[in-house]
C-alpha cells in the first residue's frame, strides 16, 4: 500500500518536473540574447541612482536611448512599456545621431556604432548618463557598462571611474556582479 502510494507520488512529481523543464528550455530558447539584454537594461535602471541634475524637471520622464541600429526590435519597448522608475515613466528614444538621444539618462550604444565609440564617449563624458555598450572594450574605452557574453550568459563589464565621472551611484550588488575594467591611463 505504502509502496503504491510512493510510486504514485513519484510519477506525479516526474510529470511536473518534465513539464517545468520543457517550459524552461522553451523560455531559454525563446529568450534571445537581445531579449535578455532588453530585460537587463530595464533591471539596470533599478540598481543605479542618477544625480538630480540628470532630470531637468521633476516630471521629466526617464529616457532610454538606443544609439545606432536597434537590435532589440520591439523587445525593449515591450520590457519598459508602462513601467516607472522613481515616479518617472520610462520612455524609449532611438536615433542614429547624438542629437536624437541627447536627453537620455541611459544610452545604449549599439554595435553599429563601434566605429565612433570614442566620439560618443567623449561627447558624454562627465554627463549624468549611464552609457551601456554592446561593443567590445566599450567600458575600457570609457563607457560605464558594457554587455559581453560569458558563454551563453549575458554579462556586463563596469568601469567604475567612468561611473563616478558621470555622477552615477551604482548599487553595490551591481558592482559585485559586474566585471570591472579600467580606463586607459587611469586605474579602476
Amino acid at each position, binding site marked *: 500500500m505504502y509502496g503504491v502510494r510512493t510510486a504514485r507520488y513519484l510519477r506525479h512529481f516526474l510529470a511536473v518536473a518534465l513539464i517545468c523543464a520543457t*517550459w524552461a528550455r522553451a523560455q531559454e530558447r525563446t529568450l534571445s540574447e537581445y531579449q535578455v539584454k532588453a530585460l537587463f537594461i530595464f533591471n539596470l535602471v*533599478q540598481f543605479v541612482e542618477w544625480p538630480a541634475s540628470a532630470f531637468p524637471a521633476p516630471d521629466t520622464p526617464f529616457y532610454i536611448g538606443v544609439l545606432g541600429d536597434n537590435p532589440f526590435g520591439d523587445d525593449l519597448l515591450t520590457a519598459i512599456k508602462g513601467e516607472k*522608475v522613481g515616479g518617472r515613466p520610462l520612455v524609449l528614444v532611438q536615433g542614429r545621431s547624438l542629437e536624437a538621444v541627447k536627453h537620455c539618462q541611459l544610452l545604449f550604444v549599439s554595435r553599429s556604432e563601434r566605429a565612433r565609440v570614442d566620439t560618443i564617449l567623449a561627447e558624454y563624458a562627465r554627463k549624468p548618463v549611464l552609457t551601456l555598450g554592446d561593443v567590445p572594450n566599450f567600458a575600457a574605452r570609457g563607457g560605464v557598462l558594457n554587455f559581453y557574453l560569458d558563454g551563453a550568459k549575458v554579462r556586463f563589464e563596469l568601469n567604475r571611474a567612468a561611473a563616478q565621472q558621470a555622477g552615477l551611484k551604482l548599487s553595490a*550588488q551591481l558592482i559585485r556582479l559586474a566585471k570591472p575594467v579600467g580606463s586607459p591611463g587611469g586605474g579602476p
Partner: protein
Amino acid sequence: MHWFHQLPVRRKLNWIILSICGLVLAFAGTAIGLYELSAYRRSVVVETTILADVVAANVSAALAFDDEKGARVSLESLRSDPHVMSAALFRQDGATLAEFVRDGQRTAAPPRAGALRAEFTDEGLVVVRAVALNDRPLGTIYLQRDLRDIRQRMLVFSGIVALTLVAALLVAAALSSRLQRPITTPILMLADVAQDISERKDFSVRAPVVTGGEIGKLTTAFNDMLSAIDQGRTALLGANEQLRKEVSERQVAERRVTAQATRLLQLNDLTRAIAERQDVESVFQTVAGSVEEELPVDFACVCTYDEDRDTLFISTIARGSLPLAEEMGMRPPFAIQVETNGLARCLKGELVYEQNTLTLDKPLLLRMGAAGLRAVVIAPLLVESRVFGVLIAARREKASFTSSDCEFLRQLSDHVALAAHQSHLYTALQRAYDDLRQTQQAVMQQERLRALGQMASGIAHDINNAISPISLYIESMLEREPNLTTQGRERLTIVQRAIDDVAQTVARMREFYRQRPQALSLVRVGLNPLIQQVIELTKARWHDMPQQRGIVFELRTEFAPDLPAIKGVEGEIREALTNLIFNAVDAMPTGGKIGLRTFVKHASNGTNPADARVVIEVSDGGGGMSAETRRRCMEPFFTTKGERGSGMGLAMVYGMAKRHQGEIEIESTEGQGTSVQLLFPLAVGPDPFVDVAQHRPQRGLRLLLVDDDPLLLKSVSEILETDGHQVVTASGGQEGINTFTDAVEQAQFFDAVITDLGMPYVDGRRVAAAVKAASAETAVFMLTGWGQRLAAEGDVPAQVDRVMNKPPKLRDLREVLATVKPRPRP
C-alpha cells in the same frame, strides 16, 4: 487509593498538601514553559524571516541579472548563522538559481520553492520569502532553520522547573508537618482515647479538653458522647441482665415442657408397646426395659404382690439391671417383706420415693444402697384399687428423681397395671376359650366314639360269645381234671389268662365311651407277679417287633422283695402298666432302657402304715416332655403321637390310680427321659370276698338257658350240668318263652332262667318279661356281651335280677346261682 486510606492522619495531610503544591507548580511550570516555547518560536520565525529578507535584498541583483555565482556567494553568507541548515534561491519561473547546504550534506529533501510561508516542519523551521525589486517579484528565497536551540532551551527550562518543584515541595513538606500539628494532635488524642475505651471498655475515660475552634468543640462533644454512651451502656447492661434472666427462666420452663412432652411421648410409645404384649411377663419386661433405657435409671424391676403372704416377689428385672441384681442377690423370685420395708403405704396405692437409701433403716433400701443405688422410687401397680405389684426404679445419684420423673412413673404404673390386668383377663379368656374348644373336641370325640362303640359292642358281643366256651371249659378243666399234667395245667392257665385279657381288650373297646362302674370289686393284688405278667404280655411290643427293625430295648426290673399287697383290680392295673410300657417304648424310637421298679415309700414324718405307699415306677431314657406337655399329658385325648395315639393312655392310668385311691407322679426332663410313679395305699385287713370255692351249690337247680349261639348254649349247659344242675336249653328267644310257658303249664317250674340279651326277633328283654309275667318268683339272669354297658346306663330291665358279662366265668355263675333259692320240688 486504598493505601491512602490506610495512612495516618499526619501523613495524609502531608500528602494532600504536597500533592496540591506539586500539582500547582507543575501546572504553572507547564504553562510558563508552553508560553516560553511559543514566544521563542515566534521570535525565531521573526528572526528567520528577517534573515531571509536581508538575504533576499542582497541577492535581488543576482536574481535580477541571473547571476548564479553572485547568488551563491550571497547565500554562503548564511553560514555564519549556525542554525541555518540550508537555503536556496529560486527564480520567478521556479528554477533554482543557487543553493546552500550546511556541511555540504543534505539533511532533508531538496527544497522546493512553493508558496511563501513560514512553518515548522520535521526538518525545522522553513521560511520562504519573495525576492522583489521595486515591488517587482524576482523570485523566492528558501531558508531552513534547525530547532536545536529551542529543544535545548526547553530542556534547560524543564530542569529549572523540576528543581524549583523539588525545592518547593521540600519546603512545603517541612512547613506542612509543622503547621498541621494543631489539627492532628487533638484528633490523634481523641483516637487514642477511643481506642483505649474500646480495648478496656472503660467509658469513664475522657479526652483532654482543647479550647477553641472546631477541634475544641469536637473534643467536648466527644466527651459528652462518652458520658451518654456510659449511661446508655449501664442501662443496657441492666436491661440485658434482666433479659437474660427472663430468657433463662423461659428456657427452664421450655425444657420442662419439652421433657414433659418427651415423657408423654415415651409413655405413649410404652403404652403402645405394652398394649401389643399379651402376657404379663412380656409386659413387665417391656416396661422395665423401657424405664431403664428411656427414663433412664440404673436399676428397674417389677414385683408382684402375694396378698396371702404379704410379700412382694421380684418377677422381672430389666436386662441392663441384671448385673446389679446379681450383685444385690435379688434374683427373681426374690421376696421382699412388705411390713419390714415400710412398703405398706405403697401397697395402699401411694408412690414411695426415697431420696437417699442409706439414711433409712430398711433391709431392701440398705441392700440397694450397698450396691450404690441411692434414690429409689417404688410405684404401685393398681387395678380396681387393689395393688397387685410394684414398679421399682433406682438411680445411683441421690435425690436424682425429679417430680416429673415421679409423675411419669406414676402414670406409667397406672398404664402397666391396666395392661397387666388386661393381660390377665386376656389369658383367662384365652384359657376359657381353650377349655371350651377342648370340651367341644371332647364332645365331638365322644360322639364319634359313641358311634364307634355301637359298632364295637356288636363285635364285642360276638367275640364274647365265641370265647365263652373256651373260658368256661378251661376253668372247668382246671377245676375238675386232676389228671392234668403240670405242664398242661400251666399252659391252660396261660390260655385262661389270655382269654381273660381278650375279654378285657374287648371290654376296653367300650371304655372309650362309657364310665366305669363306680364300685369296683377290689381284691388283694400282689404287684410283683402282676408286673411279671405284664412284661410277658407286652413282650411283643418291646422285644419281638422292634427286633425285626434291629432296635433293642433293655428291660430292667428291680422288685422290692416282700412287697405288701394292695387292693385293686388286677385287669385295670395290668392295663395301666401296659400303657406305661407302651409309652416308654414309644418315647424311644431308637431303643434304650426301660426301668420297672417297685418299692415301698414311707411317709416322711411317721411310720403310720396308712401313709405308706407301694410304688411302681416305670422309667425311660426317651425324649421327655415339655412343660406344656407335662401339664396336659393326663388330659383325655391329649396326645403327642399324632394319629397313632388315642390320647387315652395316661388318662386311663390316671383314672385307674384315682379309683385305687392312688396317686400318679410324673417326673420328666426334656431330652432326658420320663419316670412315672404309681403310688397305691397298702391293703389293710383281709380280703372281703369269699373264696370262689365256697359258692359251690349244695344241690342242683332246674335252669332254662336261652341263647342263639349253639356253642355257648352247649358249653354253658355242660358246665352247669357238671355242677349238678338240670339245664334245659332253648336256641332262641321265642323258643325260650315257649319252653318256659310250656313248663309252667306243666307245672315244671324253672328255678332260674339264664338268657342272652341280644338275639334275633325276640331278645333277652322280652324273654325276661315273659318269664316274669309267667312266674314272678323265677330268677332271671341276663348273660350278655353288653352287660356292663347295661349296668352303666341303668338300662337293666326291671325283670332281670342280675346281669352277667360274657364270657361267663364259672365262679361268677356259681356266685349268681348261689343266690337262687331252689323251689321246693313237687
